[in-house]
Each structure stands twice: as structure tokens, then as C-alpha cells.
């Protein structure tokens, strides 16, 4: 029996009287792609924040690779191999695509109290960055400033930056949001290529993408996991249909 890479136990967060995360428990096996879906306001962002450490938790525990990370600061979780992409594109727009990814590499190659040598000349940073760009199909855009990239390319770049930190777990926060069908298809292909070599927690609205990619799916509603299972089980689950249809958001529209 393999231990889960990420084990969330009874994770809870209240904002005033509102319970944003209500005793969430989840386990991700190594190499699995686990999708979390849920209507707007279900608490997906809060959960991501708790996992990355930007939001503290009132109760519960997060274990990652067998280690309790519930109280660790954001950057330490990153060092342990927990990477995320952002929902709102939040790259460094003054830098080139390659600079951005190289910065992510730099974050994981020792401290940065190195004051003299030009960072752009360091092969140790640039080469892994190029590799990561290549993995998401952006190699030819390496020297383009981020401000000049398209929306879809920025999302690819987000993933490249996450990959560059050599993560064990990738948290993807609605990577498809705001994308046209072509860009989405490209991203699905990228993720499919990554699948298996990485453990991925995918938070996503795009149901087609979720059911095309996920090994397991959990459904989050009002801060609670109401169902968890393989895609077929989730599709058939009455409570899930109820929650979604009640919200006026059918699978078909997803």
C-alpha cells in the first residue's frame, strides 16, 4: 500500500460566521490527477489558499509527503515541492518568458544572496528554464516579454514556472479559465503529457477538460466534499447533479 502524497484531514476555515472550508478531507496518491469541481463560491479558492499557505486553517491537518505542513509559510511549502499556478495570471510582465521561468528555477537552487554574477548568464538557471518552456510548447517564445504574450501563452507559462520548481505536487487553479477552445485543447494536451510523472490537483470549471483528464474527481459544495470517485461515478451521482442543477449550472454548460 502506497502512502498518499497529499493527505488533507478535516481542514476547516471560517471567515467570521461563514464556514468557507468545512472539514475537507482528501487524499492524493502519487502520480494521480485529482480534479476538484464545484459551483462558484463553493470554497475552491479558500482550499487552494490553505494548501499553499496563504490562508491559515482553523482546524485540521495537511500532510505532504508524510510531513505535517499545516503551519509552514508559503515559500517553505514551495521548497518541499508544492507548486501552484494562479487563477488570475500573475506573471512578472517586465521580464521575458525565459526570465520568469529562470526565476522559478532560481527559487529552488539555493539561496539568492548572490550579488555579483549576472543571473541572465547563468546556464544553471537558463537551461532548466528552457527545458520547462519546451515541455509546455513555449520554447520559441522564450525571449518575448510577458506583456506581449497572449492569454493562452501566459497560462502555459504559468505551468512552465510551476514545473521549473521541480514540484512533486502541482496545484492548478482553474488553468482553463477565460480560454478559447483552441488554447484549451492545447493545455489539455500539455497536462495529459505531464500526467503520471507528477501528482496534480486540478481545480477547474471546464467539465470537458476535467472528465478528459482526471483519475478521480471530488465535488466541493459550500465548503464540503459531497462526493468523491472516478469520473463515471461522479457523473452518475444524484447528489452532485442536484447540487449543480440547483445552482443552474448543468454539466452540459460547464
Amino acid at each position, binding site marked *: 500500500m502506497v502512502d498518499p502524497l497529499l493527505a488533507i484531514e478535516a481542514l476547516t476555515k471560517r471567515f467570521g460566521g461563514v464556514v468557507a472550508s468545512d472539514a475537507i478531507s482528501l487524499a492524493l496518491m502519487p502520480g494521480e490527477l485529482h480534479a476538484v469541481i464545484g459551483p462558484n463560491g463553493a470554497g475552491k479558492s479558500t482550499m487552494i489558499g490553505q494548501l499553499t499557505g496563504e490562508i491559515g486553517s482553523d482546524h485540521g491537518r495537511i500532510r505532504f509527503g508524510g510531513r505535517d505542513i499545516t503551519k509552514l509559510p508559503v515559500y517553505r511549502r514551495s*521548497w518541499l515541492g508544492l507548486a501552484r499556478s494562479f487563477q488570475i495570471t500573475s506573471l512578472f510582465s517586465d521580464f521575458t518568458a525565459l526570465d520568469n521561468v529562470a526565476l522559478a528555477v532560481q527559487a529552488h537552487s539555493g539561496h539568492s544572496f548572490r550579488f555579483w554574477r549576472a543571473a*541572465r548568464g547563468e546556464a544553471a538557471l537558463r537551461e532548466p528554464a528552457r527545458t520547462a518552456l519546451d515541455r509546455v510548447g513555449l520554447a520559441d517564445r522564450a525571449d518575448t516579454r510577458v506583456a506581449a504574450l497572449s492569454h493562452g501563452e501566459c497560462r502555459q507559462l504559468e505551468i512552465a514556472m510551476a514545473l521549473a520548481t521541480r514540484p512533486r505536487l502541482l496545484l492548478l487553479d482553474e488553468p482553463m479559465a477565460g480560454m478559447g477552445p483552441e488554447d484549451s485543447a492545447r493545455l489539455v494536451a500539455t497536462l495529459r503529457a505531464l500526467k503520471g510523472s507528477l501528482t496534480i490537483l486540478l481545480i477547474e470549471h471546464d467539465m470537458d477538460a476535467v472528465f478528459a483528464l482526471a483519475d478521480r474527481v471530488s465535488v466541493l459544495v459550500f465548503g464540503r466534499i459531497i462526493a468523491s470517485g472516478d469520473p463515471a461515478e461522479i457523473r452518475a451521482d444524484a447528489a452532485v447533479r442536484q447540487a449543480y442543477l440547483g445552482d443552474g449550472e448543468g454539466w452540459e454548460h460547464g
Partner: protein
Amino acid sequence: MKHLLECWRGSGLNPRRAVNAVVLAGLALMPVYAALTGDAFLMTLLTRVVILALAALSLNLIMGFGGMVSFGHAAYLGIGGYAVGILAKEGIGSGFVQWPVAIGASAVYALAVGALSLRTRGVYFIMITLAFAQMIYYVAIGLDRYGGDDGLTIYRRSQFGGFVDLDNKVLFYYLCLALLLAGIYLVWRLVNSRFGFVIRGARSNERRMRAIGFPTFRYKLVCFVIAGAMCGLAGALLANHTNFISPAMMHWTRSGDLMIMAVLGGMQAMFGPLIGAMTFLLLEEQLSRVTEYPNLVLGPLLLFVAIYVNGGIDGLLGGGRRG
């Protein structure tokens, strides 16, 4: 010198390079001109320009590249200056002691202020740095032994045991200029190093920097301390230049002057603080020659720059972006 040329060549488009070249050549040759014409005042003025440019450069490191809008930078000028003045008064005239103390004391103060103020954001950061500087200002006023409100005359410039005679005005000028150019080179290396990338990344998106694994606070703090130390050196130079220290040199409006120099020159340009300091001080000087009320012109001019000009003089020269 080769590196210096490189850093200025690498920094962009032609009009800017031309201006940088003219400014540098002018600064290098000015003592010759002053000697020929016997214009001692020009020498004094430009020494001041060069010293304050070093202070503005250090401010620009944290403000322009690190996004830390510190409104208390004149405090370091004061601390550096008082280190020299107090030691001189107590009979320790050696520059080998005075200057390291000036730099060290500024660094320690920067460490304390930075550790407290870097926890805050935005306007709070501006306000807290301003308030701490004002605190130091009042401390200086309370130093009765060192002249209190009236300040203190320094009767002997820092002694360097025969190596450099600071009383030689030309020599002192060239020393200041050399230190400024060394400072520009240092900042250029710094902002392009790994450390510099972290600082600039934190300016652009700190949350993201933490998410990819940077403990940004400690890098910003170190940057803050480096800038403070550099400005402390400028303070030591300033005290030697004027032979005088007083609380007025760290009044909050002096911090405002330094910000103006940095913004005016263009914060993304290596030579921006120098160009800014030069423009500001020469403009001030020229205006007060033609009118009794120079600030009636200077004030609205600053307002105009704040409203309509992006990237300061460097922006006007087509500087624009740079990686």
C-alpha cells in the same frame, strides 16, 4: 572602467547614451574648467551634486528596483554625517574610523527600520519610514553636546593618514565622483544578479515570488540595509563637504528632495539618479539667480512632471523599458 562603459552601453537607446556621455565627460572635465575660469562656486556645487547623486542612487536601489517607497532616506545622510561630526568632536579624526562607523551605523539603523517597516504595505510603508526619519531628526535636535538645533561645525575633515587630503578640493571632488561611479557600477551588478532578480520580482509581484519559493522579506531587508549603508557613506561625504552637520540635513523635506532626484532622472535607468540630482540642483541654482522666488517655478514644474511625465528624464529620452 570597461564594465562601466558596458553598463552604460547596455542600458538602451541613443539619445540617452549621448546624454550620459555628455554628463560623464562634463563631470570629469569640470575641475579643469573651474581652474581655468577660477569658478570655485561651480566646483562646490558639483561636488554637492555628485554626493547627493550617490544618496539618490542608494534610494533608487530600493525604490526604483525594489519598489520600496522609502520616505525617510535623509536619515542616513544625517546618521553618516553625525558619525563623522561626533567622532571629530570627540577627537577621533581618522577617516578610517569615521567612514566605516558612518556606514555601519546607517546599516544598523536601516536594519531596525527595515525589520519593522517592511511588514507594512503601500502608504503605510511610506508613512512609517517617514516617521522613523522624523524621530532621528528630533534625536539630533536633542543632542545638546553636538549643537542641538544649531548644528555643529567640523573643524577638520576626515584624515586619511597622508593617502588622500580631503582639504584639496579637486581631490575631494574626484574622490566623490569615483565613489559615485563605483556605486553605479555596484548597483548595476546588484540588480542584474540573482539577488537583484529577487528584488525586482518582489517589486513586480511579491505574492507570486513567495509562491514560487522566495522568502521575500529577508531579501528586501538586505536590500534596504545595503541602500542605507550606501547613503550613510554619502552622509559622511556631505559632512566633509560642508564642514558642518545639523538636524536640518535630515528634515523630511530633504528626504523629499532625494525622492525627487530619483524620480526625476528615471528610476529604471542606472544613471537616472545622477541626471536627476544634477537637473534638480542646477535648476534650483539657476532659478534662484534669475528670480527671488525660485520655488514658484520649481514647484509647479515638479507637479507637471508628476502628472505628465512617465519614467522621468530617462523616459523623455526614449528609455522606456528594460529587462
